[in-house]
C-alpha cells in the first residue's frame, strides 16, 4: 500500500476549490496527491501515507494550521511543510517558520510559481520560498 519510491504530497485546505486546483496543478508531475479538509483527516493520511511534502492552510475548521503543523512535525520531523494563508499575518507566519515550516505562500498565488517551488523543495534545491 505504501510505495516508498513515489513522492507524495498532502494538500490540507478546507476549500474544495483550492484542493481541486492543486490536484490539477500537480496532475502530470508524477507526484501522488492526497487531500484533506481538516486536521483530523490530515493526520490520518500523514500517518498512513507518509508524504514527503505537505501544503497546509493556516485557517481550518477545528485544529488550526499551526496546531496541525506541530502534530505533523512531531510524528514526521522530516516532512517538508509549506504553509498557505490568505491573511498574510506576519506573526503567525513567523510562528509557523519557527515550528519548522519551510515557507509560506500567500493567497492568491501563481500556480506555476507554486509548482516550480514545490519541485525545488522536493529536490532540496531551495528552502526559502515566500510567494506573494
Amino acid at each position, binding site marked *: 500500500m505504501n510505495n516508498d519510491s513515489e513522492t507524495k504530497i498532502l494538500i490540507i485546505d478546507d476549500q474544495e476549490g*483550492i484542493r*481541486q*486546483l492543486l490536484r490539477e496543478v500537480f496532475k502530470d508531475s508524477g507526484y501522488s496527491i492526497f487531500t484533506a479538509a481538516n486536521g483530523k483527516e490530515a493526520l490520518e493520511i500523514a500517518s498512513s501515507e507518509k508524504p514527503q511534502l505537505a501544503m497546509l492552510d493556516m485557517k481550518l475548521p477545528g485544529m488550526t494550521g499551526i496546531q496541525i503543523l506541530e502534530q505533523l512535525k512531531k510524528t514526521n520531523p522530516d516532512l517538508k511543510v509549506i504553509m498557505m494563508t490568505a491573511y498574510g499575518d506576519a506573526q503567525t507566519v513567523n510562528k509557523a517558520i519557527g515550528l519548522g515550516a519551510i515557507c509560506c505562500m500567500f493567497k492568491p498565488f501563481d*500556480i506555476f510559481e507554486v509548482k516550480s517551488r514545490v519541485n525545488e523543495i522536493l529536490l532540496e534545491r531551495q528552502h526559502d520560498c515566500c510567494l506573494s
Partner: protein
Amino acid sequence: MWEEREAVMRRSSKIVSNPKPQPDYSFITDKGHKVIITSQDSITLNETVSTYKVETTRIKSSEEPQQAVVINIEEDWCQKDSQRQCMEKLSLAGEIAAGTLHEIKNPLTSIQGFVQLIENSFDENDSRRHYTRIITGEIERLNRLLTSFMVFAKPHPAKVDSNSINVLIEDVFPLIESKASMNSVAIVKELDNTLPDIMFDKEQLKQVIINISNNAIDAMEDSGGKLYIKTSDGNNGYLKIDIQDTGKGIQPSLIPNLFKPFNSTKKDGLGLGLSISKRIMESHSGYIKVDTKPGEGTRFQVFLPKNKVVT
C-alpha cells in the same frame, strides 16, 4: 449624605444645592447609571467597566445663599457611552470585514489558478489568451483592493520599537523617489540630526509617510514642483515631520472629509490612504495637521509623541 433640597433632573443636568463637602452622594440617572459625587468639584460616574470624571459648575441661588452644583453629566455620559458603543461596533465591523475579505481570497485563488490552467491549455497564438489575461489582470486588481481594505479594516498590530524619524525618512526616500522623478518633482530633505529616537512602528509610519508623499506628488503631477520633507522638534512634546508640496492645494469643500475612508478625488483612488494614516497616528497617540492653500500647495504635519524616549 448631602441634602437634596433642590435636585432637578433635566435632560442633561442635575442640580444639587448645598453641596457641603460631605461623604459621597449618589443618585441614579434616568438612564439607570449610578452617579457618585465624590467632591464639590467633580463627580464620578461608575459603570461596570469605566469610571468617568465630569466637571461641575457651582452656582449661587438668590433663594439659597449657599452654593449649588450643576452636574452636567448626561450629555457627557451619553457622548462617552455612544463613543464606546461606536468603538465596539467599529471594532466588530472591522473583524467581520477582515474575515470576509480573507474568505474572498480563497475563491479568488481558485479562480486565478484555474484561469491560468485554461490559458495554459490554449496554443501560444490562440486569441482567447487575450481574454484569460484580462481575467488575470482583473483578479490582480481585486486582490490589491482586498489587501488595501484588509489593512483598513484591521490594521496589523503595531510593533513599536525605538526608531529615528530621520532614518524613517531615509528609508522611505527610495520608495517615493521614482514616482517623484516621473512627475518632475524634486524632493528637498531637511532633517534635524539632533532629534532623539522615539518609540513607533516603523512599517506603519512608513505607510503614513508614503501615503502623504504620494498624495503630494499626485497634487503636482501636471505641473511638477517641489516636495519638502522636514523633521524637527514640534516643541509641544512631539517630534514633527512636515511634508509640503507646491501643488494645486486642496479645495476647502474637501477638507471636512479629508480623513474619511473611501473619499478620493483620484481616478483610481480607493480613498483609504489618509484614513489609514490617521488611524495609524492615533494608535501612536500622535496626530496629523493639514494646512492648504488652493493654487499654492499643501503641508501635512505628522506629530509623534516624544514621551517614550529611549536613551
